[in-house]
């Protein structure tokens, strides 16, 4: 499945699991789709498709937002949370902390939508859980 296919199929679905999904392509060297789920406007998921996988990434916060004194504690907390969080893992791109999920290139549209919704919910849940470490 490529980005255009994915955008078209998500637009065709009026809603999934009770959530409204909005998508918008972002131009660049690598095609990226920005998808927002229901009320979670501030936590869009970015989807890109490569030869081997579909990557879904949601940005959580930047390094600036992290309370410097408690940074190590937060990182350990995130490492430990990586396993219990369903389907998603924490990572970092540049100075941004992210939560992401990877799917096989052969995944169906329902799997992809499910992944995006879970990721968005996990993102909100994670910020909430890590709030004490943020300024």
């Amino acid at each position, binding site marked *: 499945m490529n980005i255009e296919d994915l955008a078209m199929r998500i637009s065709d679905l009026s809603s999934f699991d009770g959530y409204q999904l909005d998508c918008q392509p972002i131009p660049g060297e690598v095609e990226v789709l920005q998808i927002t789920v229901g009320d979670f406007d501030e936590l869009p998921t970015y989807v890109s498709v490569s030869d*081997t996988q579909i990557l879904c990434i949601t940005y959580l916060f930047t390094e600036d937002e992290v309370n410097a004194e408690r940074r190590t504690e937060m990182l350990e907390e995130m490492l430990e949370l990586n396993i219990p969080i369903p389907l998603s893992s924490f990572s970092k791109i540049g100075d941004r902390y992210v939560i992401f999920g990877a799917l096989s290139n052969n995944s169906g549209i329902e799997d992809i939508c499910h992944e995006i919704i879970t990721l968005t919910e996990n993102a909100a849940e994670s910020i909430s859980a890590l709030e004490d470490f943020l300024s």
Partner: protein
Amino acid sequence: MSVLRKIMTAVRGGAREVGELIVDANGTRIFEQEIQDAETHLRKAKQDLTDVMAKQMQAGRKVESLKKDIGEHEGFTVQALEKGNEELALEIAEKIAQLEADLVEQEEVHKSFSGHVVRLKDLVKKTERQLKEYQRQLSMVKTTESVQKASAAITDNFASSNSKIISAKDSLERIKERQQNTFDRLAAAEQLEGENSDKGLDEKMKAAGIGGGDDKSANAVLDRIKAKQA
């Protein structure tokens, strides 16, 4: 150095073209070409292997048939000797000597093919392992590059759309507010619906102590029994 360690170093150094740093000066394209070439070689090696294996089997069959021939002719020699025909026995023995020479030659051929098969199988296995390793490395490098490029596109988009990047805490606050609004709206709608139906009236009457005759609570029953006792 492991490819992950190289990726780590390149990313820490702020490189955008990770492939160039890790795989080749020309990026991942040359590496992909090399993998394709290796795949072609592997296919050719497998073809060669099947050819050699077929020849090995043929040589094996020839060895077996020669051994059978020799056995048969030895029997013939015995029969000729039994019949006292020494001359024929010698002639047959000459044939056996020739068959045995052939056998030695065929066994040599068979052995050589067998050695070839072992070497080719080993080569195919090694190439397959190497190829898998290349593909795994390439996939890691390409994913790193793709994520970096996607990230750049997202950041550019943020900048060009002038959308203000708000903090995670504020984002969460806004989402919660919006969700609370939705929730409140739903609750209000439910309430409105309740008020517009008889259920609302019944509840209001009940609250005012009107029409509550069918109160079946335990307290009511107890009160009734107590009243009878008095």
